[in-house]
């Protein structure tokens, strides 16, 4: 039966308006009033009528029915009741708002304390159309600030003082706080005169009574009197809530279904909310009774306070100021239900439980295609896909229905309309026979079905990808090892999740956007992430080495490994014909890339291999121009037309992370499909070849030979001796300090460098001395696993153990362990391990190694938590940024963040060269190599002409940017132009154009989310190595995760602020010193030789003898006068300028003292004077002259520059001798203050890139730019923290799902905010597809037109 076309579209929540629940509404939605405190009747254990578990509220009991709607526990949505509070109480959520309002209004006439002029100004501002929430809040803050300063009410002239919170839930008004109100206070006190005379004790309390207690009743009265007009001024919108609604008068009792009772062996266990409600009902009743009977006031007050507290705990059980009872488990109030990771927002609304998913252990299978995942049969029988019956699949589905739920290609349900039948029971054959077109069969997963595969932590979009299912026996999910990279999976017990999309739309979308084939490269920088790993690399390396020769049988055998006997493979001619026909291993890979002559895959690439030894020119004839190809270890890869000319297959050529790897090149030139096919072939080949080869690692692989042992011992002994010498030198004090270091640091630095050199040298010896067949060595050489250091640690020497960047510190008195003499600095006592893992570590070494190992473990644990949070914040801040149809990047509210994405509108994941759409050199060589030789070679001028003509043609200019066209033109001008045909030029230009067009970003791309992932994900891989050398010893810069955190937090104080100043005379050391003297902080103590006290009968002075020699040496431009003024200007010392006399010839200053206490005064001065800053910037701790180690746009190599540690960019820039324009700081906030927001943006970008680069992580500049723009586009630097994000986003739901959930919700209600449900978080919470991003961008924007009923045609009646 055909379903009718929907004439009513499903309801979509478009907007949420937050408001206060007022008393009327509370009662209106309620069924009855709760008056009874008991839960169950004593006799039959049924819920008490008018109690908080009344059956009219619904029921949590499976056997009972709701008395309001008559439904059972599953179907009843629940009903409300209310409690009428006898006395009003404060609402804890609005407590802050209540105080704020009280501060702003007159406590007598309840008007807002604003002069008429201010009032008009603010009213106007509040009434602006489309006022953003954030501005409204800023305005009400401004009103509050202005109003609370007003003492006399402009309307009733009453006195107003400060309103503040006392204790947890009390507000007091200090009416006569202001000094000028002393007169009023006196008058007010005088009014009590009569009473005091009558009752003496009252006088004692009079001063206490100055603080007026604002109890809920009084506040309620005040709030009721606030006119609507004034409500606006305190930020509220009377339409959505008035101030008196902040105060509880009627308490709504929620349905039972949200607070179910759990019956446990006879007794029932009540929810915290229920318990709290009974408490409230009880206290309320007590008060009511008390009032009726006239109980004493203190008792009433006590009960009122208790009621107040109960109601507060009911909302929020974690009240600040209310001590929680130890031993008692804290109750879960409403706030606690919403808050936190497991709370409603993050736990249930932003992330939901799903059906049709599975999870199990994963294992590898190289025989699967890379886009396949093996699904165990038992999983395939549970997960189903609802397939609609068509004439084309009816027979297949009939079979599935017959097979039923228990045998594999079966089905679990058949649905016809709303009628769904389970196939385990009943006559399946009958159902199968009756199957008709239009039915839906929930059939088992079969080969080729689209599934999503995921591994936590899902740090980037490649953590969940779309595979094709392959149903296999046994119990694990299996995947091709090549796909481990993006998931970061291994097979040591990892589990992964599998989801089955349930509609054709979902499948298509998954297949297009998330499939493995379309995600071979990371959007972080466009490098391949899915590529050969570990054993695949080892096998390929072994096979492609120069001395692998294969006879025909071997060669054809290996070629047949590629495929499953289902592909045409053409064997190339052998490389050696005579004396015997032999093929080389490289030819295998030529066949792998291009299996048959029919294949069009012509790979052309030239790149460096993992380990590239440079050609030594002295070995070759001098007239040869040496090509890299001749690298002695075959470390340069040249592939021409899919034939490997030279080079080996290793990490760099078939592994991940290199754009010029074979798969990277095939992907760019021939598309993902071909790249995936080649990878499938490689996976099969490698696994099969290596299994046959028998690659294995044993004890013999780590036994060093006698030569190696001898050399290593020699090296270590030599290093020990060297260290001894340095230590001896240091003892005598003859060690020359390194710049910016003291003696100890210099010594440490020198010893460290000696010891690290040893490890390096031993590693090199290992590489040389170990056999070519040594397994660890092979793995280290080809980069499949481990490094040279790992090999040498096993074979030769473990090396120095480092703990937080230093050698092992002293754990005992003056020594690391009691095995060593005190104060010993020798390598063994500070953690140098000379043994290898093979030879075994001695006790002390073992301990040192364990210390360092522990540090690593702690680091990883800390790091995961930190980067996880960082990633979450980045994601929340950037999630809604998308590219629009005009290529601008906007957030969900339509605010422009970038006018063109990344300044050029290119997609980072499609880029080839260095952040450019095409690698021109390679493209040129490719075009030259693949053919089109026919035709006359062109003359150079013809080439230029042709190029110019093409590049200025319409199809080029309309699709490519001008800089790009210029780059292509320049390239063609500079390239070698011998024997170029017209056809080649044309093809080259076409290629350039195509690649550019392909690389343009698609409208709808969620660049924000991808950018956040691209920055957050590498963070997790960063070793928490905090410090890093930046040119000069001791000038350490914070790096790694802490630095990234600082930058994105927009931290005001950073741990290593460094300003680098370019010098006007950058070559001269002397002038650099002078500038350094100007900047660096010099204290009086540094240049004073003697501070003398002089006592005489008639005068007392403190003499300062300035060491002019030092001043000269430090090149300080300092006169005695300067020093005098420096002292005078130091406020703390309180020295008058008359008190100082200068004796210029003796370089002396005297500070005369007189008056009493001159002794103490003199002592104070003597202590304070050495700290006086006489020269330089106080905020700068030190400056170091740095010699540049490489040329850049700020100077050449060898130039001197000044690195200044500390704050004060402005002072540095205006200092004489510094080129102000080229002075930079690494402090974002300071840069923003001094140079403005654009400079701050640049600093953010540069600093993130610098930090990432120093950890060898390349991130496309576009991602970083986007982050920089998000942090600055509001005109101030906003950190990616809860404060910054709150300023960037307007949406309540988004902010609530981020941090401080309930604060945002209460704010929203109090100020009557609205949420437009436009962003990603909000849409997820509401269950809408996120508008304006991804595939939901092209949507129908106009509403469905109203079409009147078709007019009945005359002849229509005739036919019936």
């Amino acid at each position: 039966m055909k379903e009718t076309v929907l004439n009513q579209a499903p309801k979509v929540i478009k907007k949420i308006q937050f408001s206060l629940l007022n008393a009327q509404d509370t009662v209106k939605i309620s069924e009855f009033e709760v008056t009874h405190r008991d839960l169950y009747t004593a006799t039959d254990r049924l819920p008490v009528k008018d109690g908080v578990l009344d059956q009219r509220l619904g029921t949590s009991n499976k056997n009972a029915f709701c008395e309001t709607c008559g439904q059972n526990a599953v179907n009843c949505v629940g009903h409300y009741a209310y409690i009428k509070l006898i006395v009003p109480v404060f609402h804890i959520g609005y407590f802050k708002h209540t105080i704020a309002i009280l501060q702003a209004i007159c406590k007598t006439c309840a008007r807002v304390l604003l002069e008429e002029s201010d009032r008009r100004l603010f009213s106007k501002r509040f009434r602006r159309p489309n006022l953003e929430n954030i501005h409204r809040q800023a305005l009400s803050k401004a009103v509050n600030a202005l109003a609370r300063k007003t003492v006399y009410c402009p309307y009733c002239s009453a006195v107003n003082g400060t309103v503040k919170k006392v204790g947890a839930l009390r507000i007091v008004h200090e009416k006569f706080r202001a000094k000028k109100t002393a007169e009023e206070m006196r008058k007010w006190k005088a009014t009590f005169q009569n009473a005091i005379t009558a009752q003496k004790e009252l006088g004692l309390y009079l001063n206490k009574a100055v603080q007026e207690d604002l109890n809920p009743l009084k506040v309620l009265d005040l709030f009721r009197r606030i006119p609507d007009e004034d409500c606006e001024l305190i930020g509220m919108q009377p339409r959505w809530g008035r101030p008196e609604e902040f105060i509880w008068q009627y308490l709504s009792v929620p349905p039972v279904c949200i607070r179910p009772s759990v019956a446990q062996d006879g007794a029932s266990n009540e929810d915290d909310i229920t318990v709290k409600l009974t408490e409230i009902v009880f206290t309320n009743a007590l008060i009511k009774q008390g009032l009726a009977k006239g109980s004493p006031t203190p008792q009433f007050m006590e009960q009122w306070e208790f009621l107040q507290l109960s109601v507060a705990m009911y909302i929020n059980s974690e009240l600040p100021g209310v001590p929680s009872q130890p031993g008692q488990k804290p109750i879960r109030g409403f706030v606690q239900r919403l808050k936190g990771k497991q709370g409603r927002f993050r736990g249930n609304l932003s992330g939901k439980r799903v059906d049709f998913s599975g999870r199990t252990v994963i294992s590898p299978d190289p025989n699967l295609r890379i886009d396949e995942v093996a699904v165990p049969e038992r999983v395939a029988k549970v997960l189903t896909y609802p397939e609609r019956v068509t004439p084309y699949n009816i027979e297949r589905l009939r079979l599935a229905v017959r097979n039923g739920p228990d045998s594999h290609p079966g089905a679990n349900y058949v649905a016809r309309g709303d009628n769904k039948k389970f196939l385990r029971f009943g006559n399946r054959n009958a159902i199968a026979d009756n199957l008709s077109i239009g039915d839906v069969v929930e059939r088992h997963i079969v080969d080729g079905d689209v599934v999503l595969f995921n591994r936590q932590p899902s740090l980037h979009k490649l953590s969940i990808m779309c595979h094709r299912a392959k149903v296999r026996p046994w119990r694990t999910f299996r995947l091709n090892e090549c796909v481990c990279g993006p998931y970061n999976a291994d097979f040591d017990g990892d589990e992964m999740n599998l989801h089955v999309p349930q509609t054709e739309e979902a499948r298509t979308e998954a297949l297009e956007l998330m499939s493995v084939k379309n995600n071979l490269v990371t959007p972080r920088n466009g490098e391949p992430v899915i590529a050969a790993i570990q054993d695949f690399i080892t096998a390929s390396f072994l096979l492609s080495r120069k001395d692998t020769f294969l006879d025909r049988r071997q060669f054809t055998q290996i070629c047949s490994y590629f495929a499953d006997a289902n592909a045409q493979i053409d064997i190339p001619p052998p490389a050696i014909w005579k004396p015997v026909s032999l093929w080389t291993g490289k030819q295998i890979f030529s066949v792998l890339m291009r299996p048959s002559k029919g294949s069009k895959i012509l790979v052309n690439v030239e790149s460096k291999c993992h380990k590239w030894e440079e050609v030594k020119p002295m070995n070759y004839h001098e007239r040869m121009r040496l090509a890299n190809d001749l690298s002695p270890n075959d470390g340069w890869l040249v592939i021409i037309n899919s034939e490997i000319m030279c080079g080996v297959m290793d990490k760099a050529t078939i592994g991940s992370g290199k754009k010029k790897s074979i798969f990277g090149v095939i992907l760019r030139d021939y598309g993902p499909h071909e790249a995936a096919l080649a990878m499938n072939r490689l996976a099969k080949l490698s696994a099969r070849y290596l299994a046959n080869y028998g690659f294995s690692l044993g004890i013999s692989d780590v036994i060093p030979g006698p030569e190696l042992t001898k050399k290593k011992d020699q090296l270590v002994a030599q290093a020990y001796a060297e260290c001894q010498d340095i230590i001896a030198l240091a003892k005598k004090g003859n060690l020359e300090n390194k710049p910016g270091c003291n003696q100890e640091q210099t010594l440490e630095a020198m010893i460290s460098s000696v010891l690290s050199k040893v490890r390096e040298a031993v590693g090199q010896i290992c590489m040389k001395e170990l056999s070519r067949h040594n397994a660890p060595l092979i793995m280290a050489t080809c980069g499949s696993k481990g490094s040279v250091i790992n090999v040498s640690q096993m074979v030769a020497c473990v090396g120095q153990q480092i703990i937080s960047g230093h050698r092992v510190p002293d754990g005992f008195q003056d020594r690391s362990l009691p095995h060593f003499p005190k104060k010993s600095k020798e390598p063994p006592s500070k953690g140098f391990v000379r043994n290898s893992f093979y030879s075994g570590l001695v006790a002390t070494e073992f301990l040192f190694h364990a210390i360092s190992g522990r540090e690593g473990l702690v680091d990883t644990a800390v790091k995961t938590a930190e980067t996880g949070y960082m990633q979450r914040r980045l994601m929340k801040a950037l999630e809604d940024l998308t590219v629009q149809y005009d290529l601008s990047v906007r957030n969900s509210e339509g605010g422009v963040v970038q006018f063109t994405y990344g300044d050029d509108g290119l997609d980072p994941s499609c880029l080839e060269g260095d952040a450019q759409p095409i690698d021109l050199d390679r493209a040129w060589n490719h075009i030259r190599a693949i053919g089109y030789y026919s035709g006359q070679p062109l003359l150079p001028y013809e080439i230029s002409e042709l190029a110019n003509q093409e590049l200025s043609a319409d199809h080029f200019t309309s699709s490519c940017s001008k800089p790009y066209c210029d780059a292509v033109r320049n390239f063609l001008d500079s390239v070698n132009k011998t024997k170029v045909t017209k056809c080649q030029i044309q093809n080259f230009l076409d290629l350039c154009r195509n690649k550019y067009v392909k690389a343009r970003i698609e409208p709808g791309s969620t660049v924000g989310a991808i950018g956040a992932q691209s920055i957050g994900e590498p963070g997790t891989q960063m070793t928490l190595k905090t410090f890093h050398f930046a040119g000069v010893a001791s000038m350490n810069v914070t790096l790694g995760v802490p630095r990234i955190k600082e930058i994105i937090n927009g931290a005001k104080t950073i741990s290593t602020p460094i300003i680098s100043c370019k010098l006007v005379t950058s070559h001269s050391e002397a002038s650099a010193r002078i500038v350094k003297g100007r900047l660096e902080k010099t204290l009086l103590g540094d240049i004073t030789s003697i501070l003398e006290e002089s006592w005489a009968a008639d005068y007392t002075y403190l003499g300062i003898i300035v060491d002019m020699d030092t001043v000269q040496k430090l090149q300080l431009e300092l006169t005695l006068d300067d020093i005098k003024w420096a002292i005078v200007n130091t406020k703390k010392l309180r020295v008058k300028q008359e008190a100082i006399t200068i004796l210029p010839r003796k370089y002396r200053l005297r500070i005369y003292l007189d008056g009493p206490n001159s002794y103490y005064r003199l002592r104070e001065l003597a202590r304070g004077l050495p700290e006086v800053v006489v020269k330089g910037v106080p905020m700068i701790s030190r400056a170091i002259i740095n010699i540049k180690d490489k040329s850049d746009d700020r100077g050449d190599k060898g130039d001197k520059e000044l690195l200044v540690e500390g704050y004060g960019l402005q002072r540095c820039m205006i200092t004489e001798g510094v080129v102000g324009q080229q002075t930079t700081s690494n402090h974002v906030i300071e840069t923003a203050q001094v140079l403005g927001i654009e400079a701050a943006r640049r600093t953010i970008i540069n600093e993130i890139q610098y930090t990432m680069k120093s950890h060898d992580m390349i991130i496309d500049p576009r991602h970083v730019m986007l982050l920089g723009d998000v942090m600055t586009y509001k005109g101030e630097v906003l950190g990616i923290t809860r404060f910054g994000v709150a300023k960037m986003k307007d949406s309540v739901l988004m902010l609530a799902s981020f941090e401080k959930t309930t604060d945002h919700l209460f704010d929203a209600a109090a100020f009557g905010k609205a949420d437009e449900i436009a962003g990603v978080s909000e849409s997820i919470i509401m269950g809408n597809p996120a508008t304006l991003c991804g595939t939901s961008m092209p949507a129908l924007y106009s509403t469905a037109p109203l079409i009147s009923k078709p007019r009945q045609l005359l002849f229509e009646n005739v036919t019936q």
Partner: protein
Amino acid sequence: MSGPTSNIVFDDIFTVTAIDKDGKKFDRVSRLFAHSKSYDMDLTLDFNVELFPLRQDDSFALALASSLSRSGAGGTTEDGDDKERDVWRPDGKGHRGLEDEYDYVMYGKVYKFDGGTSEIVTAYASFGGLLMSLTGSFRHMTSIVLGDPVYLLMRK
């Protein structure tokens, strides 16, 4: 050098000046450095030491040929060079030609010419990864065509 009709594009006698100057990196392959007196050519060549052992100061004849057929004229009779070049018979039967006169024959491709405008040029050829570089005056290498398959024939 043979006449224009011959398939041999280069022919000379070299003397090995050194073997594995960079150090021995592979078990079965060595790199020889050789010089020829007659044309003043320099040669580096990776070769299989097991199949064709050479020592320092050995002399050998080396020829580069575009085809193994004995004469250039032969190419035309067998419908064009292109077809004939890529044909090979795994059983070693079929066309027998130049290789009979040599002890060691490799098949590969000239893939790079280096030298630019100067008198001295270097040709690079790869025989399934075994590299050859031939340096000398461009006059002696005019028949070597970039990108063409090439046979390397050696005899002691």
